[in-house]
């Protein structure tokens, strides 16, 4: 069954194969689809099979001094924890960061691809690309692969001429500008802590501590999040990694074990 793309094709060029000369809008790609009885149902099933739930916690927020970005580091395949040390904050270039949620391969590949595009933009235009532009480039790519099973829930955080920028971009092709975002299965828990403690005028240390706590609380309750809580700061001079703390250690730092007073001491029974 061949996808009917005749409605999407642009006017055919007069001289056949010289497609570059009629660029602007090139013909939409077409491809063979599987022979099935129930195509729509099959497609839904295939997507469900491929779609990993975004088992992770990532968050980012804009505050007075810049952007704070934090993430956990656990990768899980169902109930199996495949890694506790995944780098979920991807360095696109010295002044822009991306977070990873969803398919690790998808996120890593497309962020590197975005890095290439950003660099080419810099070389062509003799100025850095804005966070708006970079997030738009990624969103356009993801939109063109819509429905093909990509799983990407990412935040693009950076500092450009207009100041700090933060965008949420996902595999549906959605793109949102915002001040606070959290993405992943642990995001509800992170939002609770983040929204409660957020103030625009925080210092860098206060903001880092808020981000760290939010990730810790998410890892505490969400089974698919854990490992190390990494915190990055993006300021006018670019990004800087502030900390990477094991969440187990963070737990005992926040809730140290008090030696409990024993109310009744069990005495050794003498004799019988």
């Amino acid at each position: 069954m061949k996808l009917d793309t005749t409605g999407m094709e642009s006017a055919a060029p007069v001289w056949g194969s010289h497609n570059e000369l009629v660029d602007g809008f090139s013909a939409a790609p077409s491809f063979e689809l599987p022979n099935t009885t129930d195509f729509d149902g099959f497609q839904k099933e295939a997507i469900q099979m491929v779609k990993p739930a975004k088992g992770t916690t990532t968050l980012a927020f804009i505050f007075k001094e810049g952007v704070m970005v934090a993430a956990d580091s656990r990768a899980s395949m169902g109930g199996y924890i495949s890694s506790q040390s995944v780098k979920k904050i991807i360095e696109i270039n010295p002044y822009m960061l991306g977070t990873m949620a969803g398919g690790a391969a998808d996120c890593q590949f497309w962020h590197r691809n975005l890095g290439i595009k950003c660099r080419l933009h810099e070389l062509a235009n003799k100025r850095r690309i804005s966070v708006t532009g970079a997030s738009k480039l990624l969103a356009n790519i993801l939109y063109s692969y819509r429905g093909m099973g990509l799983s990407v829930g990412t935040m693009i955080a950076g500092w450009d001429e207009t100041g700090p920028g933060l965008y949420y971009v996902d595999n549906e092709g959605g793109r949102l500008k915002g001040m606070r975002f959290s993405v992943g299965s642990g995001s509800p828990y992170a939002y609770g802590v983040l929204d409660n403690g957020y103030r625009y005028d925080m210092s860098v240390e206060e903001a880092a501590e808020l981000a760290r706590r939010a990730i810790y609380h998410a890892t505490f309750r969400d089974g698919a999040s854990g490992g190390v809580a990494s915190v990055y700061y993006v300021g006018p001079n670019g990004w800087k990694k502030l900390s990477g703390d094991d969440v187990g250690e963070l737990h005992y730092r926040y809730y140290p074990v008090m030696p409990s007073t024993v109310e009744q001491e069990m005495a050794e029974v003498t004799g019988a």
Partner: protein
Amino acid sequence: MARYDRAITVFSPDGHLFQVEYALEAVRKGNAAVGVRGTDIVVLGVEKKSAVKLQDSRSVRKIVSLDDHIALACAGLKADARVLINRARIECQSHRLTVEEPVTVEYITRYIAGLQQKYTQSGGVRPFGLSTLIVGFDPYTGVPSLYQTDPSGTFSAWKANATGRNSNSMREFLEKNYKETSGHETIKLAIRALLEVVESGGKNIEVATMTKEHGLRQLEESEIDAIVAEIEAEKAAAEAAKKALAAPKET
């Protein structure tokens, strides 16, 4: 499909691309066009063929806008110009769509020049027969720019330039008389350059200015006439002053 694959633009034994050079000839036969860059304004001026009585002159605008902050004037084949302008306008919008930012003057000039170059290296097509003068303001820095492209696909930035008929005389005039100007002075300089080769009068020239605040503005015929009168008056005064200086020496 008809096989128009054979290249029309091929090298000659002594390294020339004759089609491109012939295209430059076509440009040299086109109407005169001049562009001058000031500190806060850029001015484009184009020669208008003497008013054909029944033609509606408003439909033959020779200075067009590519975007809010970029305008273009050209010399050469006007039909080719229409095609190139349409592609450039699409590219301006496409750039806004993909990176949510307006194009820089250099970017769109590079695009147009690239397009002109492509047609010198493809089968079955001839080069575009026009040179363009592209003016605009950088959307971020607010710096005004003037660029020129030609049928070979090269481009460069200029403080002032002319193309089309008698462009050499205009360029010589500009080289002699160019200085950093702003506002009204820049408009006068552009019109003075055009008047070197064009019959004076508002109905023979079309002038447009581009400023950061107001974008592209076409000057009315009456405004042009007023400036022409100003220029003539200045010329007359300069002549009289020269004569007055010369006179005492005779006695």
